[in-house]
């Protein structure tokens, strides 16, 4: 008989341990995160009433009724050696583009894909201008374009309304979420709702400045590269790992928030109090790894206090007919392609 997998700690040490948020649409896979610690097979982490549960995919197939969309998504992501938020986003977009989450999600995936290609073009053009056409054909700019396709090349991205690259989009969405939930926390009628809202708000506020700082550092690192012809350009091995790490940090920090933001924004205002319990159960908890990534802003509460407070307000997933749940989450796929 297989040994039960121990529950992971409430606050993970590493992002890889926390896993990547996976936008499954089946109700029994709500809030799933995927992690793969090679050479182990991929595992799913699912929020439950007693904490996070670690489940193998075979068990999910038998007991958690994945949708057609979920099977397709799993087929694409479970083989990834090192799953990242960007890779999962790309896979989810592909599945939505094929039509497995309905027509609105399909159209949104197509638009998002075009937007990303446009960002790539802008990035390629900007880098070619800075480093010269010769360098554009060299070993440096191709990988840089791939890295910056999720980030854009500067503050113009954040000035756009709405931004077109994924990371600035995530930051703007998280800012909007903070503003909306702060307003809710002030006007909510019940004490339990106000407390739940302030927990979600604190978690978002502790994440946002770090993501913002990582993105700013990435743009600054690109801007500081010495311009000029190819022979003076920096060597890829000197530059690319740093840029890739900064982009990845921003991605990991934001992972899971766009879906929560869309869930909150699309909810009927009258139902937001109930929604908070669900959102708290899926709260993207910042791993200890992120502590040194950016100067910590003034915090409402440190993470361990926040998690204790969260457990005290009894987070939980709502009971909803499967069809209604899937429709709601397919609608989210259209909002966060």
């Amino acid at each position, binding site marked *: 008989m297989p040994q039960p997998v121990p529950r992971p700690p409430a606050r993970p040490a590493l992002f890889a341990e926390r896993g990547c948020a996976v936008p499954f649409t089946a109700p029994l896979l709500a809030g799933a995160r995927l992690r793969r610690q090679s050479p182990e097979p991929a595992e799913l982490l699912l929020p439950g009433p007693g904490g996070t549960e670690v489940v193998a995919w075979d068990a999910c197939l038998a007991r958690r009724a994945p949708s*057609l969309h979920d*099977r397709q998504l799993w087929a694409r992501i479970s083989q990834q050696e090192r799953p990242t938020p960007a890779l999962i986003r790309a896979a989810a977009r592909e599945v939505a583009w094929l039509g497995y989450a*309905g027509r609105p999600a399909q159209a949104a995936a197509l638009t998002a894909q075009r937007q990303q290609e446009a960002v790539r073009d802008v990035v390629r053009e900007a880098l070619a201008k800075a480093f010269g056409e010769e360098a554009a054909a060299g070993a440096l700019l191709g990988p840089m374009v791939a890295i910056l396709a999720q980030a854009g090349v500067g503050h113009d991205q954040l000035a756009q309304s709405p931004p077109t690259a994924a990371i600035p989009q995530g930051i703007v969405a998280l800012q909007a979420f903070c503003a909306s939930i702060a307003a809710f926390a002030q006007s909510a009628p019940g004490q339990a709702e106000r407390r739940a809202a302030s927990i979600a708000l604190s978690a978002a506020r502790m994440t946002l400045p770090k993501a913002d700082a990582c993105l700013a550092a990435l743009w600054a690192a690109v801007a500081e590269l010495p311009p000029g012809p190819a022979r003076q350009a920096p060597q890829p091995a000197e530059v690319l790992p740093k840029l890739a790490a900064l982009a990845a940090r921003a991605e990991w920090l934001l992972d899971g928030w766009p879906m929560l933001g869309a869930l909150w924004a699309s909810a009927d205002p009258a139902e937001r109090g109930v929604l908070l319990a669900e959102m708290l159960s899926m709260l993207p908890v910042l791993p200890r790894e992120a502590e040194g990534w950016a100067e910590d802003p003034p915090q409402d509460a440190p993470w361990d206090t926040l998690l204790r407070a969260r457990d005290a307000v009894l987070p939980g997933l709502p009971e909803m*007919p499967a069809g209604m749940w899937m*429709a709601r989450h397919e609608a989210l796929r259209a909002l966060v392609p």
Partner: protein
Amino acid sequence: MRLLGGQTRRLHQALQQGQDHGAGRVLGLLEGLPVVPERPMRLAQLLFLPLEGAVGAAQGLPSFPRAAIPATTALVARHLPALAAEVEAAAPWHGLADHAVVAGLGARLWPAAGQALRDGPPDGWTAPGLTPETVLPALKLASALWRRAVPLWQASLAVNPSEAVLRTTLASLAAEGPAPLAAGMAFLLRNAARPGLVASLATRLAPELAAMAEAALAARLAAEVACLAECDHAAAMAATAARLAVLLAEPEADAPAARQALVARLRREAAQACHGHYATALAARLLAPATRAAAAPPADDATVAMLEATARDLCGLEAAGRELGQQAEFERRREEALRRLARLAGNPAGLSRIELARLAEILAGPEAGLALLV
């Protein structure tokens, strides 16, 4: 939503304007309109909500004369002026369907009114057109019901109230006397989700209520099943069927044989009605349009959205209907539909194979969808 007279007139004028200008004005008017509830929560309405079972009650049941409502409301307002003013101020914006507001204000109003009138009305008080012999016992009944109105109201709202909750509520009414128990029982028989259990529990407390309880229960259950005939949409029928599955739950072992037979008959009728609607809607609103869409050039987004919404509603109706009965018939219809979708998926045109698989998934679960893709 109900519009006030002037608003209706302005809306009418705006609609008669030129198309663009008029549409803009209509939108502007609609955005600025307050929503007027269908049943406004005036003081009298809120006060007498827990007395629904007693106001104008059938002969034999303790009753509160309708004609005494204005004078009694004025009397309560005189005792509780601040609370009365608060309710009247909220009335234009809230209706009796705003359960949270009703519960919040009721929790303050009802017990206070019950206490204020515990010792009866002041000397010389009269209700126009009614004799003291009629109005004084009615006032005593109202006062007792108001004192117990909070748990009574909560029990009437619960989706599936427990036996303990209903027993405690009825016992607290019995402590006030036989008339409050009978009137509270009548209220719960009209409104609670488990009226059969209410009848059984009340009869255990006061066996003389048995005939009244069974008659009121039979009337309520028949009326609820009749609601199915008014549902012209699968989603509405599913919601009604889900309510009926609780209402028509297996009666307690000690329930009278006549009630056991009545519930069994009504369950059968309700299940047949649900299955009949399911079969008709499945053919006419899902399979026929899906077949048309599949045969034509690529279907537009609105058609696909309509088909998926219909499949979702039908899935809900099947789940609710099966709780009442006719499981084999539902199963047979669903399998037929899946075979039909599979045939369409064999030669996809206007709807892609994935879209047809999604319809099967929405209608019957992911395994059914998967079968169309392998």
